[in-house]
């Protein structure tokens, strides 16, 4: 996993609540057995005017000019600003894979769905929760400022606006460490292999029907 320490990136606003993982990456693209290549189909049904299928040459597809990510001013955005309950629905990790492949490294929202939130941390994407008021003000700022950038400082746990205002956020200490260092958490867990084995042995003797 790529480290996440500090990001200075362009912000794209997606002004909707309850953006679900079906919208982030529609099901027809879940047939892939790879982890990469989902970026061209991120938000496929909103981004293109035709029906997307795996294996298409996306450069030939008609773009929806009204969709925010198709607008020139947001080209190259690395921070997605959105509303509450982002990533609800399916557990598909293809959703963060698609965001990452498109170029997003951070998502700022009022709240996130649990499984999506978890999946972000496994892929070097930082999901940041800010209050509804802070989110509202960021939407105004981004709208009013072409080329609006934000600095996301994970070490100090703050989002810094170009006008200098800082917005503190909270991340679990363990997840923060993993992101800052780009740690593979399977490797971390396996350091406790002896504890797992001991737990398992005790469980097997106490509740043998679970191991039949």
């Amino acid at each position, binding site marked *: 996993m790529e480290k996440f320490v500090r990001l200075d990136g362009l912000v794209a606003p997606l002004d909707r609540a309850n953006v679900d993982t079906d919208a982030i990456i529609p099901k027809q693209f879940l047939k892939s*057995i790879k982890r990469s290549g989902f970026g061209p189909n991120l938000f496929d049904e909103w981004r293109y005017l035709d029906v997307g299928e795996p*294996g298409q040459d996306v450069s030939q597809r008609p773009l929806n000019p009204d969709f925010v990510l198709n607008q020139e001013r947001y080209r190259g955005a690395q921070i997605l600003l959105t509303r509450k309950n982002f990533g609800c629905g399916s*557990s598909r990790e293809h959703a963060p894979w698609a965001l990452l492949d498109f170029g997003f490294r951070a998502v700022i929202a009022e*709240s996130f769905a649990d499984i999506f939130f978890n999946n972000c941390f496994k892929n070097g994407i930082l999901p940041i929760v800010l209050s509804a008021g802070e989110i509202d003000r960021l939407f105004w700022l981004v709208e009013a400022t072409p080329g609006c950038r934000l600095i996301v400082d994970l070490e100090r746990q703050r989002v810094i606006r170009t006008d200098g205002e800082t917005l503190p956020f909270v991340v679990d200490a363990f997840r923060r460490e993993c992101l800052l260092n780009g740690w593979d958490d*399977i490797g971390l867990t396996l350091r406790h292999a002896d504890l797992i084995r001991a737990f398992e042995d005790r469980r097997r003797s106490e509740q043998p029907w679970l191991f039949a």
Partner: protein
Amino acid sequence: MPQTLYEKLWQDHVVHQEADGTALIYIDRHLVHEVTSPQAFEGLKLAGRKPWRVSSIVATADHNTPTDHWDRGIEDPVSRLQVETLDANIREVGALAYFPFRDPRQGIVHVVGPESGATLPGMTVVCGDSHTSTHGAFACMAHGIGTSEVEHVLATQCLLQKRSKTMLVRVEGVLGKGVTAKDVALAIIGRIGTAGGTGYAIEFGGSVLRALSMEGRMTICNMAIEAGARLGLVAVDEVTIDYLRGRPLAPKGHLWEQAVAAWRQLHSDADASFDRVVDISGDEIRPQVTWGTSPEMVVPVDSCVPDPSSEPDPVKREGMERALRYMGLRARQPIREIRLDKIFIGSCTNSRIEDLRAAAAVVQGRKVADGIRLALVVPGSGLVKRQAEDEGLDRVFRAAGFEWREPGCSMCLAMNADRLQPGERCASTSNRNFEGRQGTGGRTHLVSPEMAAAAAIAGHFCDVDEWQ
């Protein structure tokens, strides 16, 4: 100190805890399907790791598999590769049980797990599928995980977790005629919202829950994720134990006795306290129909599509307006006037034998309305299908003009050929009415099996309560 069911289950699975409360949780049962596992098996292999405990794995192919012409195999080459990849991975790694495509016991992973007895009370159950919450009906700590976590469980038999807050949703009273577990689930989501359960483990209780069968309890726990909760729970009682007795993978003989004694402890203590309690009157729940593109956009069948102009919150109002545009509906339109193009009875929410019986009872001796282009019944598993056929339900559906299909996820998420065309409107017993969920541009209304069956016959929504 008195504990909630969730706290008991949590405590029983903590292997190790970090200073910030992040815990290593032991996983008893790992359910695997073809869509979210290939990258996990590949990752495991690339890292040179072996699965920790193969006998925890139960696998089946369900999302991509076709529901007709099984003799032709899987015609879509991309889907076929994914299913063959699962075959190859399980062949190489092994599993406690594997129900591959066309196996008589193949089916939707959340139907197959409980019916085979692979899901047992007190377990942690995970699967790379958000509807894993279904298994909480058996007092399991059961939730969906992403592919990285699938790999983590394969490699370590554990997951890194933070403890959730606890919520009790208490549904007291008696359900009216034509009101089902699905309506209870939708009414709960309508009340607390799709983010209402975020960060919580929801325990469902009250006299309504106690009176439900395991099938009904599974329907409600299945939809816990649609309320934002990663997991739903129902305490163990005689209904749970009766359901499990004799299941192929359930314990036998003295182990059964020992297990049952332990399972009887799996309930919240009488004076346990929850972080939040929601009380719902079961008597007041009417058959529900979703009108929008989120499961919280739901109303009783005898009411009208809401009017966005009466919504004070601007973000919500815009969401409602967008939903109405997408759904092709107008504000204040009576729900009963909404006409359907397709009907789907199936999915991990509502494809079990009890669901099919209830739908068949509505359909019996009647014909699907002329305007309906396709009415599908997709049993949740091969065993459900066989039992339904033994009871003659397939003949009831076929005689009415329904198609009787092979088991799988089918038009719940439309990864196979079963889908809506742009603009088509469907009464569906599935769990998500998101934009494009059942096919690009498709319009989904979530309902119970009875309501879907009645809509198929009438051609529009109608109140099963008044069904003669």
